[in-house]
């Protein structure tokens, strides 16, 4: 060790010889997170950073929350799934459990997320798509039929309609004969991130925080084995956040929840051990391993500093991970199996407690039976065929990993401090700070991909010229909806109307007064057969529905791209069009239905504006009628429909019909997002001029849009 420094000098000399004159430092890279990735790390880097990862199961838990980790029991294979009806999803769950899956994770449809029953007119295109439709406890009972809820841990991704869904789960268990203290699992219940990304909120922020707090209170008293919240960075990364932003905003959200619960009178140790986390794992392998290690370390430090818990478990960050959906490509989709495997390895080497691996076809549609099986097997193979589980934190002590863990932690800490200076995460969100940072990060990344600085195999490099079509799962949305509506009618006919009404009034009253536990009251209303939509409405009567103020950034995309020749060409093309036309090409970027994932829409809006379009941004959750009205009033040339939740086959033809009726058939429609190739012909026939799948080069898309407008005019 004594001649370490001369060792390093020798290495540098060796490198510089290979580089033929360039400095060894020229091999270092700047990470998107904003720190330097060294070409080589050595023991000095670790000692300079004063890193001591300690032991697993001990503060600060860098090497894992538990001492034995996977050597005793591997992580839980927890595949997120749900589609169509409760019956269909139940069948799927039971099969998966037979084939090695260990825990359930329920995906609800968007109508349910937003607190609408299936018979609501706003959700026609959303019922049973992208998740299972749950309108009442009767649906929930079918969903878990034959699955003993005292034994099966159930994770539920629900944030907006979190109260009626928790209530339906509790009552379904009750009617199975299982009492609340035996229930184990996780409710996502992370509303703060909904206001930044994903957008499946219902009520205004302050009121929503009351619900979070009521759930934490209820579970800490009655459901000791249930995780009351899953603080999620996943959707931030999916929306474009780099690892430092994801880590920082997630932990800052966590601190805000703890603060809220403590302020409501709970002892930190009564609930902190039941907080869980949820991170995305993308393709930056070493960075993602480091992220999970840094997350545990930083959380332990922050909790200790701010809340001084007595129970060690309150310092311990336990997390679920999911491989990145955004990293999947629609092009050459079998490549996604490889991507998911690499990401799964990073999650495991980072020490996750449970994991969802994506199916290779998820950039195209809902997973099929085959793709789901391969996704699940990706995990069983790592668990049972490799030696990865035989050693705890096998990458611990690696110079690179320890240094990166430290650097990422420090970077996140700086961002958290900024948030703290603003008065915490709730305040920062109100000011739009995290949303803006994430959108900037997304626009920069998109420009990097379009320009070719960032490689995505099969998309911007090594493109497969002849694509084979992939089998997809298509949901008969109308059929599901009809069935759900019948069931709702039946429940409403059978129940004691007066009793239901009383229970719902009690909820509205508690929402108004601030007294009582709303989950408690919702459980009672659910026993009396109030529906998910009715309970949501009871709260809405007191609080209203939240409308986001939508800010869109400008200039970031161009800042990365402007020197590029192709970019200048498209700008000139747009300028020429404006000259002829007497105005700039005008596009309405719209999302229809209840899907709130607006990364694609936002990136397109900001890039198109930078290139010279006038861009109208439609409100989230538009109906086809609303989109048509806005397009007509603003007299746009083109409507760009962003669709990620499979509602396009219902919503786009509706839009076309309305435009024609309003004598606005000359407005062209282009679509982008997750659209299976099998649907292309259907959409072209319906009147769509162009379809842009994931991975589309944005300047090329813009150029195509201009051509289409010209063609229509001719």
């Amino acid at each position, binding site marked *: 060790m004594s001649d370490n420094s001369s060792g390093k000098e020798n290495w540098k000399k060796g490198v510089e010889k290979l580089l033929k004159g360039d400095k060894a430092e020229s091999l270092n890279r700047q990470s998107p997170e904003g720190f330097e990735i060294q070409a080589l790390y050595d023991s000095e880097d670790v000692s300079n950073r004063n890193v001591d990862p300690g032991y697993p199961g001990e503060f600060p838990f860098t090497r894992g929350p538990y001492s034995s980790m996977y050597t005793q029991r591997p992580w839980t294979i927890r595949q997120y799934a749900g589609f169509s009806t409760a019956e269909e999803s139940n069948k799927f769950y039971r099969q998966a459990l037979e084939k090695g899956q260990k825990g359930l994770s329920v995906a609800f449809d968007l109508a349910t997320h937003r607190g609408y029953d299936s018979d609501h007119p706003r959700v026609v295109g959303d019922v049973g798509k992208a998740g299972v439709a749950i309108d009442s406890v009767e649906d929930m009972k079918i969903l878990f039929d034959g699955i003993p809820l005292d034994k099966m841990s159930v994770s539920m991704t629900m944030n907006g309609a979190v109260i009626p869904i928790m209530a339906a789960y509790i009552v379904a268990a009750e009617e199975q004969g299982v009492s609340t203290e035996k229930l184990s699992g996780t409710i996502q219940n992370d509303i703060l991130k909904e206001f930044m990304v994903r957008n499946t909120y219902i009520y205004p922020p302050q009121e929503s925080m009351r619900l979070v707090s009521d759930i934490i209170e209820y579970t800490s008293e009655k459901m000791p084995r249930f995780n009351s919240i899953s603080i999620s960075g996943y959707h931030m990364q999916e929306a474009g956040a780099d690892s430092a932003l994801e880590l920082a905003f997630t932990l800052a959200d966590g601190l805000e929840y703890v603060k809220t619960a403590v302020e409501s009178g709970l002892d930190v140790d009564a609930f902190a051990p039941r907080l869980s986390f949820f991170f995305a794992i993308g393709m930056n392998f070493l960075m993602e391993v480091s992220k999970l290690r840094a997350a545990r370390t930083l959380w332990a430090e922050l909790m200790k500093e701010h809340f001084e818990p007595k129970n060690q478990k309150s310092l311990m960050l336990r997390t679920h991970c999911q491989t990145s959906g955004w990293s999947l490509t629609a092009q050459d989709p079998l490549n996604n199996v490889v991507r998911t495997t690499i990401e799964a390895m990073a999650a495991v080497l980072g020490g996750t407690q449970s994991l969802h691996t994506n199916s290779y076809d998820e950039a195209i549609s809902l997973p099929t039976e085959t793709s789901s099986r391969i996704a699940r097997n990706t995990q069983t193979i790592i668990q049972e065929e490799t030696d990865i589980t035989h050693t705890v934190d096998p990458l611990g002590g690696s110079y690179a990993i320890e240094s990166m863990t430290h650097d990422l932690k420090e970077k996140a800490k700086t961002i958290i401090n900024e948030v703290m200076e603003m008065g915490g995460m709730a305040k920062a969100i109100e000011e739009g700070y995290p949303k803006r940072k994430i959108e900037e990060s997304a626009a920069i990344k998109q420009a990097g991909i379009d320009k070719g600085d960032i490689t995505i195999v099969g998309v911007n490099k090594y493109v497969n010229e002849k694509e084979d079509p992939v089998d997809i799962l298509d949901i008969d949305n109308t059929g599901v909806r009809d069935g759900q509506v019948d069931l709702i009618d039946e429940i409403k006919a059978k129940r004691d109307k007066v009793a239901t009404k009383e229970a719902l009034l009690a909820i509205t009253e508690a929402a108004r007064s601030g007294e009582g536990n709303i989950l408690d009251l919702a459980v009672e209303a659910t026993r009396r057969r109030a529906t998910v939509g009715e309970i949501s409405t009871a709260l809405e009567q007191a609080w209203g529905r939240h*409308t*986001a*103020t*939508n*800010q*869109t950034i*400008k200039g970031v995309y161009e800042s990365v791209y402007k020197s590029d020749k192709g970019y200048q060409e498209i700008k000139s093309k*747009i300028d020429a069009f*404006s000259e002829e*036309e*007497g*105005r*700039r090409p005008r596009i309405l970027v719209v999302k229809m239905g209840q899907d709130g994932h607006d990364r694609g829409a936002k990136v397109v*809006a*900001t890039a*198109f*504006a*930078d*290139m*010279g*379009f*006038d*861009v*109208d*941004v*439609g*409100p*989230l959750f538009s*109906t086809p*009628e*609303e989109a048509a*009205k*806005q397009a*007509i*009033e*603003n*007299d746009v040339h083109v409507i760009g429909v962003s669709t990620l939740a499979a509602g396009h086959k219902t919503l786009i033809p509706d839009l076309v019909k309305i435009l024609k009726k*309003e*004598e*606005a058939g000359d407005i062209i429609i282009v679509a982008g997002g997750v659209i299976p190739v099998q649907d292309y012909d259907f959409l072209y026939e319906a009147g769509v001029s162009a379809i842009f799948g994931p991975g589309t080069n944005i300047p090329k898309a813009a150029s195509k849009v201009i051509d289409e407008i010209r063609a229509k005019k001719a």
Partner: protein
Amino acid sequence: MTIDELAKGVQEGKRRHLAKAITLVESNREADQQTAQDLISKVRSAKETIRVGISGVPGVGKSTFIEALGNLLIEEGLKVAVLAVDPSSPATGGSILGDKTRMETLSSKDEAFIRPSPTSGTLGGVAKRTRESMMLCEAAGYDVILVETVGVGQSEFEVASMVDCFLVLMLPGAGDSLQGIKRGIMEIIDILVINKADGDQEKMAKNAVTEYQNAFHLLTPKYDGIGVDFLTVSSIKKKRIDEAWEKIQGFISALKEKGIFEAQRKEQELNWFKRLVEDEVLRRLWGSETNKEKAAELVEQIKKGEITPVKAAYDFLSSEISR
């Protein structure tokens, strides 16, 4: 679509036609400008309308206020058009127009027409386009025209010069020593509304009103016998929006009683005429090729010190003034 079809559609209140007509008015092509003027002459209506300008700094809640007010007007059986002027969008390149995301319920109503407009490169500037779009909306049967503008640059003065009532939104805290108010703005305000007066901020908003009242007390009123009106609202909680509408109506009635209403509209038109002439003269003056050359020549001479600026100006104008 022919010009007659377009005019007919506008007069029948067809959304598609009104939108196309506004596009024509906004066009940067000179040929379109001619057509636009023909169109406006064809559709001019004598309908009774109310034109309200609404201004305030970014973040004050203009869109939320308009959403609440617009919905209230529709409940009263009126049709509402909203024209949004955003001078902060860049001079070149495209813009992002996200206004409607903040007027979700209003934008979906049949009785509402909302048109946000980019400002880049418009012939005649923001004022010309908005004024003409306003006329088109009136011809299409809209009773109340709300012109929204961000309190930046000259746009507030431009908008105030084309409406009957100019309303400015303020934040509760901004009352502190009137820092929130721009020089010259006080003279053009008819109604000052403190928004976001809810929860903890309610008391702050009331204090702000008192401070503003004291400050405005010192001003000579814009109209004899009609003072500036003040009120606090919460757009998000829809509190006292009805009072805001009552105050606007009260103000308009007062103008009418005193015979100012019609006179002011006439005067606005006359000023507008003058302004157009001036703009056009300037445009032609600087736009003609021979003038450009002559000017360039003189500029060079000034730079070299061969001629004084005053002499150069006389030379320039005497050579071209006959045209």
